[in-house]
């Protein structure tokens, strides 16, 4: 940039499409305060009735896992097949199980 102005901080935006659903990450935007972040999210991400609720989180406040750790974090769950109902062999005549 040619000027010395500070950038507006980045916020991550999560929208609940309708009650009963989780908030879902939809993207980011720039704002200087919480109120502005909500207003910008409303104007940017809900122009077509996409939401009934907005969460805005400062991007710098989010802690994320690292893809390099994916093996360590997520591989150990792979062989735990006994956690899934299909692992168990129940005769067809037994109902509602």
């Amino acid at each position, binding site marked *: 940039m040619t000027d010395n102005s500070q950038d507006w901080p980045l916020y991550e935006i999560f929208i609940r499409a309708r009650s009963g659903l989780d908030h879902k990450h939809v993207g980011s935007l720039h704002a200087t305060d919480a*109120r502005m972040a909500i207003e910008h999210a409303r104007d940017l991400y809900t122009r077509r009735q996409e939401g009934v609720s907005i969460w805005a989180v400062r991007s710098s406040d989010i802690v994320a896992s690292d893809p390099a750790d994916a093996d360590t974090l997520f591989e150990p769950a792979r062989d735990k097949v006994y956690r899934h109902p299909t692992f168990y062999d129940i005769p067809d005549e037994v109902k509602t199980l």
Partner: protein
Amino acid sequence: MMPHCAYVLRIADTSLILAQRLGEWVGHAPAIEEDLGLANVSLDLLGQARMLLSYAGELEGRGRSEDDLAYLREESEFLNATLVEQPNGDFGQTVVRQFLVDAWQLELYEQLLESKDPRLAEIAAKAVKETRYHLRYSAGWLVRLGDGTDESHARVQDALTRLWPLTGELFSTDEVDREIAQAGIGPAAEALLPGWSARVAAVFAEARLAAPVMSPFSWHGKQGRHSEHLGFVLAEMQSLHRAHPGATW
């Protein structure tokens, strides 16, 4: 013109001309997010103007549509408040103008919810929600700019000094207002002042802004006597439509 129709036109034209002014911003705002924000306010106001103009056309009973009224009336037939035709100036001036109008429209629409005219009450019910957001948006910016830097404070204080004298008109009751109030169609103009003043004062305090002294001269845009600016607004807005009489678009 009968007072009922004139009264609806006043509200309609105020929304229309303000929407037109905000439309000038789209693509030129201080940040992309503000382009979107100003456009949303403009769209709401246009929506209000269209409903109100159609209704005014019905009240008038001469078969004029929203477009006939928007594009084919002369300057002196426009009944908007003089405040909304003022140029955008910088973003600060736009915010100050918006805030002063938003606070007034909110008072107006809240009181119109009780109107004996069911059409007006219905339009107000929709508009009041939109206007609450507009006020939230403009008040938020007024506080940021008033409190922000020395430069921003000076700019909005200056804009306020410039625009404040134009607010007098919003609260001066004339013959039309009196008849409307008597018929229970709408509030007398002066009845909006206490609520407006309280709202405005609270935000000025937060924004560290001083309300200027009211000037003795009052404008009369709502009676069709305008500042020099409306002529240019209309020349631009109406040029294409008038160049092709009778065409559909």
